[in-house]
């Protein structure tokens, strides 16, 4: 019985969050569901980049390229012209294709380090964009291609086909895709946490902190560096597929350097090296511009879109906020949103025992506990 209670206490917040996310489509309209969908897709990609840049310390500006490989891989494999495979098979193959693209880059990723790797991955974005524009027969060129909807055992994840109503709520494309996104995100969440908490995660952290020390401890440096790239690209590919399904059309200009920078910003704002942080950063970066555009008329200092030049439109306002957020987070909370949350939790825990011990009073307990909380915080620093 006490086992069950402790399990519930430990897993409770996660379970509650999962239940809440499952219930949301019954209460929110398509606009909010779309924000959620984009956020989930971004979170999957951000978790992948977090694994690579946050945990393994390999700066990558090429994430947009791997997203593009996933998205276009799915569209080509499932559509016409293309092999026209069943969409579910195409999804799996697209993810593998993105992983293979990451693997092909491993001769560079395994050797080039730090800033050099960052700029080398920059090349992927520009070369990839060029290929997307010129390989018309596969990618549809400048105008892109429309995305075939995902079908699983006769159930289509879009608005077409027989209407579906659950508990009085009509299930259109957004509602159906929401559950698909949720499933894929759950897969990402658990696999990434498993990876980070297990042997590979510790090896990658060791690599980041000191390559020499890690290789002395028996970590195969080049292999782990390449593997981190492959796994990260596979998450990016999955995110790309989900993005393609939500957009219903893929165009080359979306997969630009700005997208790579967005993903980098997500993991930095969220806090490097943590799955929850990457998710929080992804939601922040994705939802901010969409919300600003929607509520532009109610915000002070922000003009409605297209109201003359010189005024600050919602897009600009969200860009300002977004750039300022990156600077502010790194200035005042270098460990990101995740670090802020952890410090808040530590403070709550420190305060909690005080009322239970009336004789001791808050002052001595506050004076005694920082030492212990500090060490726990430090010990936890690199765990996800």
């Amino acid at each position, binding site marked *: 019985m006490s086992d069950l209670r402790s399990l519930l206490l430990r897993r409770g917040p996660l379970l509650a969050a999962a239940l809440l996310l499952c219930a949301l489509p019954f209460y929110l309209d398509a606009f909010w569901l779309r924000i959620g969908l984009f956020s989930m897709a971004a979170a999957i990609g951000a978790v992948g980049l977090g694994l690579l840049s946050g945990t393994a*310390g390999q*700066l990558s500006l090429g994430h947009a390229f791997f997203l593009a490989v996933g998205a276009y891989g799915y569209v080509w494999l499932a559509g016409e012209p293309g092999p026209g495979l069943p969409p579910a098979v195409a999804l799996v193959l697209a993810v593998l294709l993105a992983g293979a693209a990451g693997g092909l880059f491993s*001769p*560079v990723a395994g*050797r*080039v*380090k*730090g*800033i*050099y790797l*960052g*700029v*080398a991955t*920059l*090349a992927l974005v*520009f*070369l990839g*964009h*060029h*290929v997307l*524009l*010129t*390989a018309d027969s596969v990618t549809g060129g400048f105008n892109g291609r429309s995305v075939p909807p995902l079908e699983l055992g006769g159930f289509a994840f879009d608005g077409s086909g027989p209407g579906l109503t659950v508990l009085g709520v009509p299930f259109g494309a957004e509602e159906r895709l929401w559950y698909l996104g949720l499933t894929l995100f759950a897969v990402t969440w658990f696999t990434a946490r498993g990876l980070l908490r297990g042997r590979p995660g510790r090896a990658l952290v060791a690599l980041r902190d000191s*390559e*020499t*020390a890690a290789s002395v401890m028996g970590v195969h440096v080049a292999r782990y560096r390449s593997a981190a790239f492959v796994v990260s690209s596979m998450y990016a590919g999955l995110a790309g597929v989900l993005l393609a399904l939500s957009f219903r059309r893929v165009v080359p200009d979306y997969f630009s*350097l700005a997208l790579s*920078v967005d993903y*980098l*910003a997500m993991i*930095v704002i969220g806090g490097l090296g943590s799955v929850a942080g990457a998710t929080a950063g992804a939601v922040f970066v994705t939802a901010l511009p969409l919300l600003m555009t929607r509520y532009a008329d109610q915000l002070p200092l922000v003009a409605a879109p297209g109201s003359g*030049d*010189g005024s*600050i439109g919602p897009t*600009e306002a969200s*860009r*300002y906020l*977004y*750039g*300022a*957020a*990156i*600077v502010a987070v*790194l*200035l005042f909370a*270098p460990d990101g949103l995740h670090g802020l949350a952890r410090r808040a939790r530590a403070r709550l825990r420190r305060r909690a025992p005080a009322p239970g011990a009336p004789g001791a009073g808050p002052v001595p307990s506050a004076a005694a506990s920082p030492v212990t909380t500090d060490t726990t915080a430090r010990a936890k620093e690199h765990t996800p």
Partner: protein
Amino acid sequence: MTGFLDSLFNGLALGSVYALIALGFVTVFKASGVLSFTHGSLLLLGGYLVAVLHDDLGFAGALALAVLVTAAAAGVLDRLVLQRVGGSDPHAAHVQTIVTIGVDIVLVTDLARRIGGDLLPLGDPWGSAVSDLGPVTVADSRVAAILVSAAAIGGAFALFRFTPWGLALRAAAEDREAAALMGVRLTRVRTAAWCLAGGLAALAAVFLVAFPAPGLERTTGQLALKAFPAAILGGMASPVGALVGSLLIGLTEAFVAGYQTDLHVLGEGFGDVAPYAVMVLVLLVRPAGLFAAKGAVRV
């Protein structure tokens, strides 16, 4: 043959402008270990200032003021923002690199909002004039680009080589702690390096948007990204490397564009991305650039 000479000349002109930008990257990297993503927006700032001021101050006055203001902006950015980030963290330079991305987003958004969809002329004295140089016809602006860049780069190298600041910069790049113990004020050396880079970026802006380019537009800052491969090719810590890398990148771009019809298989507009392809190939062979110091890791 004229096609070859044309491409050669264009490549040299492009390369010398890229060298101005790449030298900025390298100077900043040597002094602070930061890869400056703000460079594109500083370049845009310099160009924008010249564009709005040249009516009142004349081209030379506007350019001088733009160089000074951009240099000051870069210095302020380093002193007031970057140096406060990261503290003693060994990865501080990486964190500061990401901060420069944030600053770049804010600056570019603001400048792009001011520029709007316009093409701003810079009022440069060369206009669209051309002269005949032997068998090839060259744009005066490109000749000016080569000459001014050569002078500016020569000046920067003289600064590195002969001034106390240059000595301090080289000492700090070699061994930060030892330099500090010898009395080098690292923060000042660093800020001065940022100022120099900012000034060079403003100068480069003028030649990037001069004829045959149509004028300053909101995306001009992105051209600075092409100097990334140049700086990386040479090895981030080597000014000579940046120079060689820039010429290589400029020539690559010009020749690929010049012989586009023969390279049809690579697709239209490959010239724009060819620098990146060259960079990846070089990094495969020499992972730290062509002119990198022999790497020795202290354990």
